[in-house]
């Protein structure tokens, strides 16, 4: 029972953040700033991943960075992709691959990557586990790669699951972190009140100051201390 309420709380945190940040992709470190016990966070996230309620993506440009996306959002994203492809006039038989991807592949494959052979096998399998009538061709897989649902890996013959158009967001995250840290370290004492900081605007990131403060708190770069006039944020010195 306790576990269930905790899980629900986690999901709700996700939803809140999704709306406030107006951006579906969430980073693992973000939640660490909200829930204190990191081991619990890791284990709950892993369970949600295994139940296919969250998708986990490796972000290659962020070191040790993983993004989590609720499965509904990922499905919605794919629906939008299908519409875009229909407008472009892609052949119907090739568009079927999106349906196979959401219905056949995603429920069973909850890891971060997949091999070429597994991909073919899962896409061509119907609900009962039998080989379906339609043939999966290389053209289908190249369509998935083209729209950005899969990306290539440093390992040959394996594909990473990916979020299409995640590039600008990741770029924003990196630039925003840098800008916010720069803002703090340029001061005489590298610290600032939360209220003061929330009034500032970030030029380089679309995600807003609050998101980045949470991000940096979670990764341990900032430290929050309570004072009589509100929370104070301080940059942590590396040991």
């Amino acid at each position: 029972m306790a576990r269930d309420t905790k899980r629900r709380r986690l999901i709700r945190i996700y939803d809140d953040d999704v709306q406030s940040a107006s951006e579906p992709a969430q980073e693992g470190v973000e939640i660490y700033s909200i829930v204190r016990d990191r081991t619990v966070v890791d284990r709950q996230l892993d369970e949600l991943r295994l139940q296919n309620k969250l998708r986990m993506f490796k972000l290659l440009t962020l070191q040790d960075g993983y993004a989590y996306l609720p499965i509904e959002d990922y499905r919605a994203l794919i629906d939008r992709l299908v519409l875009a492809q229909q407008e472009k006039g892609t052949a119907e038989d090739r568009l079927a691959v999106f349906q196979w991807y959401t219905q056949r592949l995603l429920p069973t494959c909850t890891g971060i990557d997949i091999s070429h052979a597994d991909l073919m096998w899962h896409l061509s399998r119907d609900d009962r586990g039998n080989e379906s009538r339609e043939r999966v061709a290389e053209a289908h897989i190249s369509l998935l790669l083209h729209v950005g649902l899969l990306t290539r890996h440093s390992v040959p013959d394996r594909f990473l699951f990916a979020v299409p158009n995640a590039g600008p967001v990741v770029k924003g995250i990196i630039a925003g972190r840098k800008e916010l840290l720069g803002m703090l370290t340029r001061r005489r004492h590298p610290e600032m009140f939360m209220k003061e900081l929330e009034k500032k605007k970030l030029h380089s990131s679309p995600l807003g100051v609050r998101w980045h403060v949470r991000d940096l708190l979670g990764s341990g770069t900032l430290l929050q201390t309570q004072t009589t006039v509100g929370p104070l944020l301080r940059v942590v010195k590396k040991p």
Partner: protein
Amino acid sequence: MRRSITEGLRERQRRKNQYFISQIKENRVKSLQVSSEKGIDSAHKGGLNSLELDSIDHRYLLSAATDASIAGYDVQEGSPQVVGRQSRRALTEGCSEHKALFKVDRSNPDCHKFSVTTAVWYPVDTGMFVTGSFDHEVKIWDTNVLAVACSFTLPVRIFSLGMSHVAAAHCLVAVGGGEPQVKLCDPTSGAFTHSLVGHREAVWALHWSLSSEWHLITGSCDGQVRLWDIRTSGCVHNFDQHDTHVGLRSQATRQYRQEANATDRANVSRPAQHRTAHDGAVTAVVPTPDGMHCLTSGTDSRMRLWDLQHNSNALVNYPNTFNRAKKGRQVSVSVDANMAFHPSGSVIQMFNTFDGSLHKLLRGHMDTVNACCYNPTNQELYSGSNDCQIIAWAAPRRANEEDDVEDGDNEDTWSD
């Protein structure tokens, strides 16, 4: 079979006693601080690379340093104080100074040429120890005469070596160096018995399993942690960070995965050579003393706990384990209070091994800490760092008595 009442009572008393003892031990571990009673007088002029305590009576500490020197200390009895000579430390009553019992340095004709990376005791008795160094040599020393009994030359620098503490059928020395192969040296024949092939980069950390004498765990710069059985060819398991704990999964997850017909392990199809345990080089591998779990730490600033029963990631998150090591580093585990000691920069972090919460930071060193070694007999920790010092950490001895006295004082002042 019925037991008599007296027997039952005695059993209950014994259990109570054991619980009491374990409580005292736990409290002692949790209150570690720089020891005010013990000072270890480091004999080295270079940074410490490794520390090891002998496994028989936990008394002799072996240290290896970057100035190519090796030294041994007695951590239980202090050295006799010379009358009439001023000691370097101002000693107060009840303190002991531990000077090196022996030292191997440049004056010894057999000594290593470059930095000594690891020194380990022969697990059976302290008459022998093994050292490995950047000068490509593994040397086996006779402690009593401080001369080399046997040596092995490898084509590369040596980062780590180890001997099995539970072995009865062999006394092999496993050596990890700048090459991907792990070599096994046999001191009885003076030759290499075999090499374990599988890693793709230098091996910085290795440790023999504590549950089986044939198992070896190694960690390399390509982020892989492998478990070997030396009787079979190839490795037994290659640990994967995304292969998560099966035993801890909830009922809902299990049910979902059964219904969806998903494979039990999310990535069982991932071929062994593409699995990684860390996103950077692995700098430390240490099994817990019961042999059921294993801790690894890597330059991706992560420490991970592995379940050796399922060979899976136990998903314990240790926060802020900063690590930018350029060679292997020692991590230490204590069973008395389930604590793991992780050197992070110049501080040592004390984590609860199974829930990952930070208990305490041990501050005292002035430079990067490379080695730490736990003493289960008297619940002490020894740490060595690049500032050439060895610090002994212990529980304050008279803490309880002092507390009592303070309480008494307070009562007096209030009653006035």
